[in-house]
């Protein structure tokens, strides 16, 4: 296994092709649960968890679809797999690790419909990643999500506390402008090209 390749995938998923700020996937929770730092962190870890698992599980499912020559069924099948997976994980955690279940709380079921999770499995297929690469891409994609949402939440907390935006910009408008500026800043990583 080429560790350089994995590192490139990781760096790409976290910074260069950050799921939220560059690929604009998973914007709903990014705006929805970023008002407070602790909820943002909870959501971030839940996303890492589910994206990694979904990547792992969807890899064999995709092999099956390819064997049956039915790649056109990928999207709907992956949605089914992710929904079932999240339900199962929720039950499993509630029984075995109640503390983690409590910590993730409502964010776990919310992720069922998160487009970043569906996005990561579809991208895995598109990029022809093997199993290990898929899982690494899924987990690091989640890490990128965590990074973005934590940065965003800290900025939003600060905006709410100390800055006084004009009345018409309060709340979501200033949050959207902030997100746009962050996306611009992350655009700067697109020149990151150290392994070639």
């Amino acid at each position, binding site marked *: 296994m080429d560790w350089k390749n994995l590192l490139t995938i990781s760096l790409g998923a976290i910074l260069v092709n950050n799921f939220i700020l560059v690929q604009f996937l998973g914007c709903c929770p990014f705006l929805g649960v970023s008002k407070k730092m602790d909820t943002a962190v909870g959501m971030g870890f839940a996303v890492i968890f589910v994206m990694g698992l979904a990547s792992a599980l969807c890899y064999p499912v995709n092999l099956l679809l390819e064997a049956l020559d*039915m790649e056109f069924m990928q999207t709907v*099948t992956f949605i*089914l797999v992710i929904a*079932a997976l999240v339900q199962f994980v929720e*039950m*499993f955690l*509630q*029984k075995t690790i109640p503390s983690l279940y409590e910590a993730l709380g409502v964010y776990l079921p919310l992720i069922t419909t998160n487009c970043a999770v569906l996005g990561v499995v579809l991208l895995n297929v598109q990029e022809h990643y093997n199993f290990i690469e898929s899982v690494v891409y899924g987990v690091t994609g989640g890490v990128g999500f965590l990074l973005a949402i934590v940065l965003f939440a800290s900025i939003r907390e600060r905006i709410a506390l100390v800055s006084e935006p004009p009345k018409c910009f309060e709340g979501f408008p200033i949050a959207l402008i902030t997100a746009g500026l962050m996306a611009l800043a992350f655009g700067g990583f697109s020149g990151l090209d150290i392994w070639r």
Partner: protein
Amino acid sequence: MTVNPMTILYAVLTLGVLGGGFGAILAVASKIFAVEKDPRIEEIQGILPGANCGGCGFAGCSACAESIVSGAAPVNACPVCSGEQTTAIAAIMGVEVAPAERRVAFVRCNGGTRSNKKYDYIGLMDCQAAVKIAGNGPLDCAFGCLGFGSCVAACAFDAIHINAGGVAEVDRDKCTLCRRCMDVCPRHLITDVPYAADVVVRCASQDKGAVARNNCAASCIGCKLCEKNCPQDAIHVIDNVAVIDYTKCTSCGVCVEKCPRKVLLDIHEDGKVAPVAKAGA
């Protein structure tokens, strides 16, 4: 473009098998990983009124039930529940509770149309809106019921209505003391009295006698006749208005007879409320 019918069949089969498989796995998992929730939570929730009024201070009836089971709340946390329901909850929790005396909301005003008005108010028919108008609302009396029915709108139990005199009046049998009306009344006229209370003070005016008399024909002027005549020392004039101590009051009715302003009222004489059996609440 032609589609091979077999492709459609395979697609349906694949998705069907996958879906069925996941369904079966989840069904099995829900049995294996079933978390035993305390059955008492559901039982208590069945007893609670289910109005989610928030009178207990929790987010709703289910949150209240969870708190009762976890011990964070007493078994009689629900202010809406009657004695029987509280006893049933106590039985589920295996404790005994002394049946709490039932209390109901009461509007401390009988002015309404008998109160003098500064002007005719034709704005939004809402007490909160009316008191924001210059002069603190249309009534001369700053302690009078405005009669626009903010409390009526707030009541989830249809237990408070504006009566013919233009004053909000509580239906004691329907009132559950959820206190929503108390929260919305901008003049804080609504307090709680025992369900069995016979004698009530229908005024909250803290104005001095002469002022109160000029403002309203149905005002307590703080003359203290009731206080002087009460054999039980149960009624006192505090801040220019009579207040009854229901722990001492025996409903003898002396104060009702003596009150020159007919502010004190034996509710049963009014014919509105049937007498209640007092033995064992």
